[in-house]
């Protein structure tokens, strides 16, 4: 960059500020205003008195929230589902990436990749219809075409909570693993081929090459991606947990996450205070997690830290 005299700074910065204006204004409205709205969690919201006029009640919303069994269930569910998604999702994505990188025919690998990312592109509504086609009690594929011919008693999937942890994990992996493998695939493609050549000369078979070369070289990517998802472990995909089990009340014990609770408390139970309290609980813990994770990533691999 050439050194320039710092004359007319306003003339230089003003056009750029104007360009940034609409975007900044949007973030101000959509993200920063609501941040100041967190005080709602400490109020007894009454629309008649208005948000600002409503009475302060301190931590009462939180006290109520944590006295219900909902608080424990939704926290447990959110954490356990995310742990399962991260662990299995990472493993399946890496396996796909490794197998994909073995294919010598570029046309095939393109075809497979396209097929595998398709599930990631559909909406949760369509996904819930796909799941419904398999699981509905009367004519669903699983009951009708698998369990019945095998003589196994049919299952009323949408009212039996115990099956949903497995179902939701399977569904989530089905939807996201192909997409998730892309970054690992790209990392593998970036590995210097001569390393494999020399390993081969030393007599290493394919599995040994994967264990001794591919996986160790993927390790930094894996660690960073896993840590990053740890930072979001208090968040869940609202659609997956609301839409796919069809908001069925019988399933709440295994499908309720913080996100679905916040929605239900706000829109269905009309308990704005409780909903805001749960939302703030999620935001604060999430924020603390992101900071912690970032500190760890910084230690492991400073280049990949977020900030």
């Amino acid at each position: 960059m050439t050194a320039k005299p710092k004359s007319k700074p306003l003339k230089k910065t003003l056009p750029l500020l104007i360009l940034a204006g609409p975007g900044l204004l949007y973030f101000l409205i959509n993200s920063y205003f609501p941040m100041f709205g967190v005080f709602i969690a400490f109020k007894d919201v009454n629309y008649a008195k208005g948000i600002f006029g409503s009475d302060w009640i301190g931590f009462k919303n939180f006290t109520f929230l944590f006295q219900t069994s909902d608080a424990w269930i939704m926290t447990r569910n959110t954490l356990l589902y995310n742990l399962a998604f991260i662990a299995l999702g990472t493993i399946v994505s890496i396996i796909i990436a490794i197998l994909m990188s073995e294919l010598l025919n570029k046309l095939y690998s393109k075809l497979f990749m396209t097929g595998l990312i398709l599930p990631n592109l559909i909406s949760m509504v369509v996904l819930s219809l796909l799941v419904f086609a398999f699981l509905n009690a009367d004519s669903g594929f699983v009951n009708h075409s698998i369990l019945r011919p095998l003589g196994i008693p049919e299952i009323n999937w949408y009212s039996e909570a115990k099956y949903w942890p497995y179902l939701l994990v399977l569904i989530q992996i089905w939807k996201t693993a192909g997409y998730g493998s892309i970054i690992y695939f790209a990392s593998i493609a970036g590995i210097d081929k001569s390393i494999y050549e020399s390993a081969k000369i030393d007599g290493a078979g394919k599995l040994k090459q994967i264990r001794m070369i591919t996986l160790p070289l993927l390790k930094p990517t894996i660690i960073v991606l896993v840590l990053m998802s740890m930072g979001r472990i208090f968040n869940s995909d609202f659609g997956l947990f609301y839409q796919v089990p069809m908001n069925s009340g019988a399933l709440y014990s295994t499908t309720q996450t913080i996100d679905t609770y916040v929605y239900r408390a706000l829109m269905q139970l009309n308990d704005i205070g409780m909903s805001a309290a749960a939302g703030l609980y999620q935001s604060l813990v999430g924020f603390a997690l992101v900071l912690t994770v970032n500190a760890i990533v910084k230690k492991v691999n400073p280049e990949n830290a977020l900030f």
Partner: protein
Amino acid sequence: MIQTRGERTFTVFSAVVMFLLTVFAFLPFLLIVIASFTNETTLIRNGYSFFPEHLSLDAYRYIKSSAYIFIRAYGVSFLVTILGTAIGLLITSMLAYPMSRSDFKYHNLLAFVVFFTMLFSGGIVPSYIMWTQYFHIKNTLWALILPNLLANGFNVLLVRNYFKNNVPLEIIEAAQIDGASELRTFFRIMLPLSMPVMATVGMFMGLAYWNDWINALYFVSKPQLYGIQNLLMQLMSNIQFLNSGQAGNVLGAESVSLPSTAVRMAMAVLGIVPVLFVLPFMQKYLTRGVIIGAVKG
């Protein structure tokens, strides 16, 4: 590269497993496509099947006969997708441009303002109250566009990174020495040189708008404003209602005229079709987009 026998075996093994995985990813789609072409009585008697006894076009005939509902929903979806993506891309790139200019005094400040929104949020309740009580977007088209406009800061940082890494500052300086204003530099030089990232981010945004149903869930109760996803959702909740057993008493004879299961599956197929057109472009830009995106903000 010459392959040893062990390697050849592994390659074949990979191909077979990948083929099976792809089939596994694809089968559910096939099931609903077939279901949408299945005769309704066959569907009720034999359940969903890959090899139905009787095929029929009834579901698509039904859709054709009440075309106005579907055309309206399609129209809403397309309008929202096109408007949202166009406005979103414009604002995103306009914000990303000053952020990418290391000679701009506030570029780091802007980056932080955007980045912080990814770390902390006030939660849904304050946003909901703000949009409904102060901006009154309930039951307007804006409800489907505004809350998702820049979705999150991620896209902005992605575009910023591309601008920064792929368009050298020297080009911009040269243009400005020739007398181009910032606006002109941005529209005539930066944007044309950044088509790949615009395509990638535009695709992400377009998909998000096309697949969105949450905004309507929160802000829209008028069926006229339902896009394709929300129309599907409405039909879904009708199925639940029918399955719950209350329907018989309440609906009586009317239940016959309710759209059939096959129609719902046909609707789902129609909801996926536009996504299929995006897929080849996806394929082309995705790897690149994901990798650019993985670079830290």
